[in-house]
């Protein structure tokens, strides 16, 4: 048990202590956005399934999704989905078609472009979702 805990600790601190610059950052962001999206996905599958199993519970679930903390969380969920997608596509294309391009020099630039593209793709949906939240939850813009 002590050995197991020690190995868990080594792996976890290694995630942050290892100084791999851009590659490390994209590795951590990919895992964080992936696990975050998966957590949401499990909840989302189960709560949506209530429309068949326990229909009276579904509107309660939707009420929670409409609350301000969840709507803010959803804006970050959308960033996670966009970043995980752009970065995942970068990994897939390189692994499947251009493995020789996995060099530190090329990938440092690629990571920066991936982050930039993800933020740019996020801006418009984030604006629309934030506006939706202000309209419905705070009565702004004539809501």
């Amino acid at each position, binding site marked *: 048990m002590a050995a197991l805990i020690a190995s868990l600790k080594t792996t976890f601190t290694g995630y942050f202590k290892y100084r791999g610059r851009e590659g490390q950052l994209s590795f951590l962001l990919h895992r964080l956005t992936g696990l975050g999206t998966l957590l949401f996905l499990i909840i989302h599958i189960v709560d949506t399934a209530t429309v*068949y199993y326990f229909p*009276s519970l579904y*509107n309660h679930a939707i009420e929670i*999704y409409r609350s301000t903390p969840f709507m803010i969380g959803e804006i970050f969920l*959308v960033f996670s989905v966009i970043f995980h997608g752009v970065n*995942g*596509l970068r990994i897939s294309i390189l692994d499947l078609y251009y493995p020789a391009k996995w060099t530190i020099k090329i990938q440092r630039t690629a990571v920066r472009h991936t982050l930039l593209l993800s933020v740019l793709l996020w801006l418009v949906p984030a604006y629309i979702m934030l506006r939706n939240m202000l309209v419905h939850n705070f009565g702004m813009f004539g809501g």
Partner: protein
Amino acid sequence: MTTTSRTVEKPSNYEATAWRWMRYSSVALIPLVWFHVLLQDVIVGVHKIDIDYVFVRWSNIGIQIYDILLLAFAFAHGMNGLRQVTMDFFHSDKARRTASWLIFILWLVVSIIGAFAIIAGARPELV
């Protein structure tokens, strides 16, 4: 100038197949997930979604097939990703096998619950 690329003998075992399918599914998931999130979260928005909305959606065989594909690809991709992360933390064969089986069972149970609900559809008459 040193080069980092090298040729290795590619194994053909379960892990290699899972590794390849993470890449194949990622390509399928870009349109599947992005369009789903864009439509439901951004264009429609959670304030317009209720059980009647789901009823109408899941009365359409095309949308049911779309959502089944989404469930199959996204959730399998996510749970295998979780498995890959746990492999970083557990190093003994026994712990890895146990973790893999637990994740597999959770994947199977939640997938069946979700797929059955999509096929059976919403029951707004019971609210």
